[in-house]
């Protein structure tokens, strides 16, 4: 809860923006267009915002632009940050995985078997015999 007081800053970031992505949701490695209702000067993509793995990508823009092309480099949550002449607006987006992530599925299945299977086995062993009498 270290940065608890940041709670107060939250609503600011939740304000809706006028950034459109076509087609939505974007897929990793597939070209998409980011469209704006006002001319923009800069576009940045923040992959995995607010995390230790956060990574920035600057998209080439020839201002004033109303549409830019972009190929997402990573799947997951990302933030599109757009700078216009007067302000900066953001929009959170989800980038889909290009392929079925086998490593992720393996981790999920193995973890599930170990945790849920282990807990079930453990409880089975425990309930096989009644509680010993108090000594």
């Amino acid at each position: 809860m270290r940065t608890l007081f940041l709670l107060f800053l939250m609503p600011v970031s939740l304000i809706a923006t006028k950034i459109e992505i076509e087609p939505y949701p974007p897929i990793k490695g597939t070209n998409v267009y980011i469209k704006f209702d006002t001319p923009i000067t800069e576009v940045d993509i923040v992959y995995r915002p607010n995390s230790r793995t956060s990574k920035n990508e600057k998209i080439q823009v020839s201002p004033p632009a109303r549409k830019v092309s972009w190929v997402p480099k990573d799947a997951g949550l990302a933030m599109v940050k757009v700078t216009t002449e007067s302000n900066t607006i953001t929009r959170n987006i989800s980038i889909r995985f290009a392929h079925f992530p086998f490593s992720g599925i393996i981790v999920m299945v193995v973890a599930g078997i170990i945790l849920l299977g282990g807990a079930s086995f453990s409880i089975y062993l425990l309930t096989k015999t009644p509680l010993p009498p108090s000594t």
Partner: protein
Amino acid sequence: MDKPQWSSKIGFILAASGSAIGLGNIVFFSANAYKLGAGAFYIPYLLSLFFIGIPLMVLEMGLGGVTKRAFPQAMYKIAGQKGEFIGWWALLNATFITMYYITILSWVLGMWFGAFGKLWEPTATLPKFAVKELANPAGFFFSILSSYKSVLLVLAIWILNIVIVRRGIETIEKAVRWFVPLMWIFMIILIIRGITLPYGIEGIYLLFTPNFELMSSWEVWQGAISQILFSLSLGFGIMTAYASYLPKESDHVNNAVATSLLNCSFEYIAGLAIFSILFAFSIVPKASTLTMMFFIVPQGIAHLPAGVITFGILFFTLLLLAGLSSSISLIEALISAIIDKFNTPRRKVLIVFSTIGIVGSILFALPKVVDSHLAGNGTLGLTLLDLTDHWAFSYGLLIVALVEAIVIGWLFPVERLTDNISSSFPFPKKLFVVLVKYLIPVVLGAILFASIKGEFLGLYGTQMQFDLEWSNLSKILPPTVLIFWLITTITISFILTKKKGAPR
């Protein structure tokens, strides 16, 4: 007087896992996992469970089971008065945590009431705020915080706790037989809803797909180990107290394994539910457990195409059940220790403890009500809660777990414990001894050192600055909370250690 005993093994497992499964499992795990790279976090987290979490759980439960005493008296049997002092210190530290935990739980109750309607309205009016109207769910949350309703909610949660612990394990067992299964059912419903949302399943890929590059970072391992330690409720003395109500011949290893795996299984399914919602609605987790609990997940629920009220009520009921099953164990840990040592009637101990606890919880809630400067940069109440959490939770538990591993590992020593506990579960005794004697103290010591070092660089250290309106207060408050926490816990622990116990 004979010590009471759990009526069944399942009753004990439900109570122990209910204690371990708390608010943190539902929201803190997901926030922490996302912050530390999701897939990069999960493998270190699993390894920490097996090499640090479960061995410490076996220690705490084995200690209670073998000595048949609550934490301070169990530690006394091993290390005399010094051990007992650490035992009391752990419980008093847990008392600080109980006070603000119940305050947070009271806000959950407030949000639960809101989930029936008002929480899902677009905005809330905040007469005390500089911004008079704020978007929900944040707006509704701050409307609870800034009104006297929050004090009534604190009282309501304390009354619920008192009712459940009034007859000790007898009433606790009755409550957890309902609470814990309901928690699992509600969480499974949330998962089904999460993964059936468009692209919700991809949130699960995000949680588990490993990032080996980031996995080499010490910070990820430190986060994973801390998550396991805090998630399993280790270092509170709770598991020792609960296991002391079991017969000596119980299978303490298997009890510890079952409790730990159930706790982490719940975290696993909570991760599935939360990550699927995050991905489906492109919601980026931010900052803290409280943000996740009161803003992020409700924001996701508000986006649902149908059943917003139903799922909202379900989510906050789940939080209430998880929180209550943990808070009752925090209360029981201290009460059982006092009864064990002084043979004081439970009713008397409960009245004194809950009176002090209610005052403490209200002190965490009240500043947010009376503070008219809720202007947007933090408040005295939240800062007090944040600071207390920082010292009591982050440091208190780490110190107790470290001392516990050293005392039981070297003074008891741990071989004596392994010889005295039976197990139906495959239990590698030699590996366990090595982990307790060497690995766990070294790893916990390293985390403690890194955390202390961080104090001089980060928020709570010499560079610390709070954006409070009272500039002097922002300088005085952090050291004041630290000194107050240390003096109070050390002094009372000293008095309780020195005070003669009732003859047995």
